[in-house]
């Protein structure tokens, strides 16, 4: 009788200990993200949103939960949102925009049990004694370089058009990288760059594309959500397009040759791991080609699709 009772107690205690262990692991990791533009912008914000969806799919909805606030271009409102999410007990608050940094400096010290991260940036403010901020950036010049090399190989006119928003942040990195890639491949190339002064002026981006093509460009590229206007023009006039931040193939599969896609999961995964182990900040992460945070996605249809189609339709006679 006594043996049975002891065994029962031992079994119950074991179950208790095991369930505590499981309980610790099964605690949902809660993330809140604040973004400066729409999640459907096919650029900066969408890349983060898509990455979070990927993580959620990996970890399962019971283990990973995230909420978002998009179009938070008003920094004062974003600051209120960051503080509010932190006070609601989210484990990680992602401030996805370089304009949010100053707000984090004020808020993070008040919430030592919450981890914050922001980008694109390299500053974790550890020199100010803050230990719960991570930072992340994208070395977009790497993918820009690759796109530039490919563009140079494909261009016949050796004139390239680049349409940028404002000459700062990862937009500047991408444009500089693209230019470097082109010039490294064809030193006598003509790379024309124009800045539209905003991230959302679609009409101006569209006319810029027209102007670039008018001065001879047969390859275009650019960054920010306004480029949909430029891609439309590229399609209309049969000019190749290189995209960045997200996969823009769907907009014009006939002409979008390659995209540098931001995959923030390579940054999010180690961050989540560190937070779970108790480290709340202090590290800077980067998307690079090496860690596959930057992926070059090539669209076969634009690259050689016409050739394939011509062969299928018998328009090409391959002389053996």
């Amino acid at each position: 009788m006594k043996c049975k009772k002891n065994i029962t107690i031992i079994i119950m205690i074991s179950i208790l200990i095991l369930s505590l262990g499981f309980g610790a692991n099964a605690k949902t990791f809660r993330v809140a993200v604040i973004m400066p533009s729409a999640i459907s912008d096919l650029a900066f914000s969408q890349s983060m949103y898509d990455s979070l969806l990927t993580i959620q799919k990996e970890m399962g909805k019971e283990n990973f939960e995230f909420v978002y606030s998009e179009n938070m271009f008003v920094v004062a409102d974003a600051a209120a949102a960051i503080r509010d999410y932190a006070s609601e007990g989210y484990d990680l608050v992602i401030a996805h925009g370089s304009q949010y940094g100053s707000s984090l400096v004020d808020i993070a010290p008040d919430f030592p049990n919450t981890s914050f991260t922001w980008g694109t940036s390299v500053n974790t403010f550890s020199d100010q004694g803050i230990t719960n901020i991570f930072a992340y950036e994208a070395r977009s010049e790497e993918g820009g370089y690759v796109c530039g090399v490919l563009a140079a190989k494909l261009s016949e006119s050796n004139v390239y058009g680049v349409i940028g928003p404002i000459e700062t942040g990862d937009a500047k990195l991408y444009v500089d990288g693209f230019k470097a890639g082109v010039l490294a491949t064809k030193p006598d190339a003509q790379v024309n760059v124009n800045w539209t002064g905003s991230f959302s002026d679609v009409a101006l981006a569209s006319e810029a594309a027209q102007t670039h093509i008018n001065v001879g460009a047969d390859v275009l590229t650019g960054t920010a959500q306004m480029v949909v206007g430029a891609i439309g023009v590229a399609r209309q006039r049969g000019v190749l397009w290189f995209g960045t931040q997200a996969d823009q193939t769907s907009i014009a599969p006939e002409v979008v040759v390659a995209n540098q896609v931001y995959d923030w999961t390579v940054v999010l995964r180690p961050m989540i791991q560190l937070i779970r182990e108790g480290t709340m900040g202090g590290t800077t992460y980067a998307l690079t080609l090496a860690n596959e945070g930057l992926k070059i996605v090539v669209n076969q249809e634009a690259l050689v699709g016409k050739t394939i189609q011509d062969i299928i339709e018998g328009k090409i006679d391959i002389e053996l």
Partner: protein
Amino acid sequence: MKYRDIREISMNLIPVAAFLLALLIGTIMIAFLGVNPLVAYQALLKGAFGSTNAIADTVVKATPLLFVGLGICIAFRAGVLNIGGEGQLVAGALSATIVCLTFPNLPGWMLIIIALLVGLLSGAIWAGVAGFLKAYFNVNEILSTIMLNYIAAYGMNYLLSGPIMDPLQIELGSFIPQTARLAHAVDLPRLIPTRLHFGIVIAVVFAILVYIFLWRTTIGFRIRMIGQNIQASRASGINVQKYIVLAFILSGALVGLGGAIEVLGIHHRLFTDGSVSGFTGSAGFNGIVAALFGQLHPIGTIPASLLLGALLTGANKMQRVVQVPSALIGALNGLIVIFVVGSEYLRRSQARRMERTADTKNNSINKDKRENK
């Protein structure tokens, strides 16, 4: 209760009724999105008033609205619409920031006063350009202020992308378009340990000053007269043109001061994302709405700005809690403006009807008095 009192109360409740009607339509939209409207509005109230932080956020949001609203009060009283608020906010903010960056060694309190004054002057100058163009070149102020808004934005972008960019950014290679964080010495003092800063006190002080100016000085009286009856003003020999330009300049001064206070109180640096609304929060437009809600009276603009600030802050909280698209907040914001502005007529006609019955009543009382004598 006398019938007249009931009518007077109901008259002032009309904007409230309009507000609620707009919220009702908002409820339909929210329900359409599959969200429980009760939960949504509960979140809105919580976000506006539900905690110390919420109230602080509401007041912080209201502060630039109040400054712009005061500026609009002056301009509107002279009969002109100042829609250059966004550009004037930038002018004030930019100049205050540059002053603080250029003279880091002055004592904090002195630098704050100088920066605020410079911000006020810059806003005045930016509006003054529009006023000058109107007076001497007959360039319509709606055109010039709209154009000047864009010019201010591009000017700010230029400076932030290079000349006044944070040297740290250049050093780190991240090129974020912002200035260095201003010295802590020029932070406006906090009223309570939240984001709530001294700016609201300055705003309320200026509201009183604007009231005194408009109702207790000759210049203010003339400005109001021009707005009410421009023909009579001209006939009485006032240089209408000069006073309209002056009203414009004063309007811009208040807005510019608001911009400077936003920098010193909340942001402590200047930044851009291409457009100015990341910094201004469209206060240049929302402030116009606040002024109207405040019956274009400087003292009335104070509660109006607080209410509008509460609405906008609460709406953001609502977005976070029920995860509706942020665009819903904008649509709701617009609906409320339309409904409240539209209800003004009912309120005005009600007011007029009451005046008329009061007159007839007075006349009949006097008639009775005379007859009884």
